[in-house]
């Protein structure tokens, strides 16, 4: 590589400006519709708030939760590909990212089993079903806690690989 023709790395611009807000909104909706699977929104008057009646309708929240999962699957596949294809050389994953990835993977896996269980031809053992349901909820709660912690410590997903940033800037 010639010294005055520095190799430039693509920046995660779309990812920061588009994917991240979409992801955060989605995660919030998944939390809301997920908690809506428990009969609490009606009991605690949330479903009485104008515009939030749907939170007390189990088939509606269930439908939205599935819809959110579909969009999240698209998004996860997209960021995995773009990370490995574009950003890995310039950015490493932070420790916080590893924690998030672990929790998200656990949520996805338990969610997949829950989806399988709801298919007409699949019957899981009762204990497995309960273990899976409670794990799904617990991992989501951990993700929420870690989200709060990471927002305080300002731990993002990517950390620039410092040694790659030595190229002289022209502007």
């Amino acid at each position, binding site marked *: 590589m010639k010294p005055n*023709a*520095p190799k*430039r790395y*693509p*920046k995660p*611009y*779309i990812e920061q400006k588009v994917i991240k807000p979409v992801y955060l909104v989605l995660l919030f909706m998944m939390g809301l519709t997920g908690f809506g*699977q*428990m*009969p*609490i929104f009606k*009991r*605690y*008057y949330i479903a009485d708030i104008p515009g939030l009646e749907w939170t007390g309708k*189990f*088939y509606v929240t*269930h*439908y939205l939760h*599935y*819809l959110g*999962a*579909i*969009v999240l*699957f*698209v*998004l*996860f*596949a*997209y*960021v*995995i*590909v*773009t990370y490995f*294809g*574009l950003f890995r050389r310039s950015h490493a994953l932070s420790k916080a990212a590893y924690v998030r990835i672990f929790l998200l993977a656990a949520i996805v896996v338990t969610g*997949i089993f829950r*989806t*399988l*269980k*709801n*298919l*007409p*031809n*699949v*019957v*899981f*053992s*009762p*204990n*497995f*079903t*309960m273990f*899976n*349901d*409670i794990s799904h909820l617990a991992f989501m709660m951990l993700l929420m806690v870690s989200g709060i912690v990471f927002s305080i410590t300002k731990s993002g997903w990517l950390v620039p690989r410092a040694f790659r940033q030595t190229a002289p800037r*022209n502007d």
Partner: protein
Amino acid sequence: MTLLTRRSFLKTGLATAGAACASQVPLPAAAQTKNDGELATLIDIRKCVGCEACVEACREVNAAKYPEPEKPFPKMYPSRVKVADWSGEDKREVRDRLTPYNWLFIQWATVVVDGEEQEISFPRRCMHCQNPPCADLCPWGAARKLKNGITLIHADICLGGRKCQVVCPWDIPQRQTGVGLYLDLLPSFAGNGVMYKCDRCYNRIAQGELPACIEQCPEEVQTIGPRSEIIAEAHRIANEEGAYIYGEKENGGTNTIYLSPVPFETLNRSVDKGPGKPHFAPVEDQMAHADNMAKAMLIAPFAGLAAGVSRVIRAARRADEPPEDNHEA
């Protein structure tokens, strides 16, 4: 024909099928197809005389499973949360609807059969859906489906949130306050007892016995057998004798097949409906959306993959261009 009456039940291999279902099977062997080993009941309402022998039998053999709530009930917040109490002496005796103490009741309809007005009766209880929303949507796995087609609610785990009743197309499960796990958690703030319904005598089936209501019926109104055979028999009778079928397609298919001398539309108009009194209306498959969206979930990652790859390719092309043309850098 291997449809079962009380005498033939023990002789068939179904007893073993039933026993296998009650045991807990670990993953992944636990996943199996719905028609493999599901038992269905055929209820020929033309034979029913309304004697309530089945109701009494159900109450007798299942009495040990009935709730014995602790009183006073915990005070519940917010105040809109209503106590559901069927445990008083008179309420326990209620027989004209489903309650936590009455999992089966006799419903009546006045209809015209062959130009003659008739009062007909028929047993009503949980339909044991093939893809039961009560079990699918139970947030704790307390409501569950067994491989032999029984849907049951585990009284030790149920928190009484009543979701199963809300999502059940027939409003079947019934709540009793003051019993169950919620008392050990946050009794005032979450849960409200336990939901009860017909469990198709799962414990008797596991031991090779017939459900009590089938065994005690003097008219042999009900038969039980492998679903495919029950369906075939129902269609044979329907064709030969001009009867109508309910339960085969309703809610995507149930394991309770009714045979009626009049269309179910007619029957549905005549029966008393309301809390604890199920209808005979057509029911769409409540879980169809979940089945379709599960398929979309399989495709979704590929869509993301394609979008990601195209982003990588575009960025790589741009990186090949001279730096001054590249405004992204």
